[in-house]
Every structure is written in C-alpha cells, then in structure tokens.
C-alpha cells in the first residue's frame, strides 16, 4: 500500500509543479495598506478587475494583528513593525470586506474591485516599490 501512496505522491507533485504559477516573477500592480492604532489606511481601496495584485500591509502598531477576509479568502498574520505581502485576485467587480481579526470593531476596510481606469490614489500606490 505504501508503494501505491508513494506513486500517488509522485504524480501529485508533478501536478503541483504544473500548477505553480509561471508568473511568480511577473510584475503585479502594487497597492499599500497601513495599519495604525488598530485602523486600516485607506479604509477603502480601489483595485482593477480581473487582475492579480500585490498588497503590501504595513503594521505600524506595536501589537500583532491578523488581516482576515472571507470574501477574498485571505488570512495573514501581521507582526508588529513589519510589512506583510499577500496577492489578491483576479476578482470580478464588487466590494470585498476585510478586517483585523484581533480588533474586528476598529480595524475594518473594504476593497472595491472596479472596471474603471486606475484612480489617482491607486496609481500613486503603484509607485510604492
């Protein structure tokens, strides 16, 4: 039975290899989110539709927080005074809420996915890197 399992693992690893994003090195539009005093800035962010983006979350607080979003399927621990990176999308137009799991009453925000051209603020955020 262990031989069969070994064969399955081998096949699975090949499948996973194919699934590995070929665009790992590709440039993604970059957006930045800041956590300060258990509040997210900006609380509303507009990102382009049907495009994968890179989101840098900068935790400027002295406590740990966890970025959580059910609609985005994302969960990331944010360590104090550290930056964390997650990738979002591609998403259809709509509103996607997120919150800080350790301070859900104050740390809240929404990501608006829009077909419209990038706004001035998001363009500015793209120049973060």
């Amino acid at each position, binding site marked *: *039975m262990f031989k*069969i*399992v070994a064969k*399955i*693992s081998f096949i*699975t690893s090949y*499948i*996973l290899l194919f*699934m*590995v*994003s*070929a*665009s*790992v090195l590709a440039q*993604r539009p970059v957006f930045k989110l800041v956590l300060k005093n258990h509040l997210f800035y900006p609380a509303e962010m507009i990102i382009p539709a*049907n495009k*994968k983006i*890179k989101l840098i979350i900068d935790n400027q607080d*002295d*406590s*740990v927080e*966890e970025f959580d979003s*059910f*609609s985005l*399927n*994302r*969960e*990331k*621990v944010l*360590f104090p005074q*550290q*930056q*964390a*990176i*997650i*990738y979002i*999308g*591609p*998403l*259809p137009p709509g509103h996607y809420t997120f919150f800080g*799991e*350790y301070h*859900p009453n104050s740390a809240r925000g929404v990501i608006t996915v829009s077909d419209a051209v990038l706004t001035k603020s998001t363009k500015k955020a793209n120049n973060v890197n």
Partner: protein
Amino acid sequence: MLINTVLVLLQSLLPIFLVVSLLLALQRQNLLTRSANTGDETIAKQTEQVSHLDDLSVISAAKLTNSITLANVINTSFFAFIIVCLLSYYMPSLSQLFTGNGLEIIFSILFGLIYGFIILAFLISQKPLINRHKDSRVTWQNSLINIAILLLVFSVHGSYFSFYLKSLTTQSMSITPFYAGIVMGIIIGTGICLSIAILLYFFLMTVDKKPTSKVASYLLLLFGVGQLMQGLQLLEQVDIIASNSHLWSTSYLISEDSELGYFLTILFGYEATPSAMELAVYISAILLPLSVGKFITYKHHHATLTNGTE
C-alpha cells in the same frame, strides 16, 4: 473581547475537536467490523456497550478501542502543546523565511501532511479486515497514523490560538475585565466545540450501525481534503500557485463567516467562491484515494477468489 475570543477559538480549536471525534468514530467502526468478521463476542459486547451508552463521553468510548486510548490522547496533547508553544514563539522568525512567505509555506506543508496521513488512515480502513486484523503490524501502523493526524491538527490549529492569546497579553488593558473576557470566551468556546464534537460522534454512531458502513472514514477523508484546501489557499495567497477567477458564489446561501459556514469549512472545506483550480484539486483529492481504496478491495477479492478456486 468575549465574542472575539469565542470566534477565534471556534476557528482554531473546532478542527481539533472534530478530528478527535472522527478518529474515535472510525476506531469504533473498525471495532464493529472486526467483531462482525471474526465473530469475537468480547469485541461485539464492547461495541454494543458503546452503541447503547448515550451518556458515555467521547473519551470514555475511546477506552474501549485499541488505537486511540485516553492515555494516547493525553500524551499526544502534551507533545502537541509543546509544539504549539514552540511554533507560536518562533512564528515571527518563521514568517521572515522565504522572503516573507515562511509561515504560508511551512503551514501549507503541515496541511499537506495532515491530508497525507488521513489518506493513509482512510486506505487502512478500506483494507479487507481479515487481513488487517491478522496483521498486528497494520494495527500498530494505524495507531501511529491516528496519533500523527491528531498531533499535526493540534499543532497547526492550536498555534494560531496560542498566538492570539500571546498577542492579547502584550496589550495594555485593564486587567480584570480583560482576563475575565478571555476566560469566559475560552469556557464558552470550548463548550461549543465539545458539544459539536459529541453530537458528531453520536451522529456517526447512529449512522454507522452496519459493519459495512463507512461514513466515518468518508467524513474523515473530506475533513482531510478541507485541510488540503486550506494549505492550497495559503500558497495562492503568496502567489506560489496560480489562482483563477471564481467560478460561482454561494455566499447568499451559506456565508463563510456564518456559524454554519465555519462548521462546513472545517468539516469538509466548504468554499463559497471556489476557483477552477481549487475545484479541480478538491475533486481529485477525493477521487484519488477513493479509486485506490476500491482498487485495494478489488485486488483482495480477486486474490481470495483465485485462492478459493485453487
């Protein structure tokens, strides 16, 4: 603080309670099938006891089985507790590995391991019993696999809750209401988790009455697939695995942040907005062990028939 602690506890500790319940139900089912195949009256009596003692706790039921005993659960929990403490202590350093993707990579490997061990437990439960119980080595392997599943689930999910508690203690707040909220949250959350686990165990006990019934093993497999999907989402999050657009959304029916959504996500990896890749992996992760299980059963029946004609 109280509600938040309950929610975080449910998210982190419910998988541990559910896996204990599923493993105990699987053990009980194995025992039942064994008694049916060997005609062992003592085992049949033990199984009968478990079936009719409505007030029997899950842990007491485990005493009657071979693989997961109370001592095993306590020992495993003790080792898991040490791993949880170490993981939560080194989490900040681990997160810095692999250019900031350390936690996602490490935890996705652990989720993959949980799925791997659950497949092994599932395949052993599918193996024809006459062979399985004659071979004590397989029973020993089964025991080790169950302990490994318990240890991994405890370590992975427990570390998030431990980290939550650790982060709360670093905050400057009024001590009395602060700790009262946490303690009350832990008591309520543990009560809910324990109730769900016991209900699931007794549900499986009612459903799995026939020796041929294997609902517990299929549910355990689905739980494993759910864990694999969590690992996959972590890899998607850091762009190691490509993610596509969502195929559909069932959020209007069952939202993932609802109580039922929490339960279904943990039980079988419910996803309100799956992508094509997630769906493909989910189906493959179920079909692959099912096919291997069927193949093992077919192979055994074929061998038995060949030996019979000779």
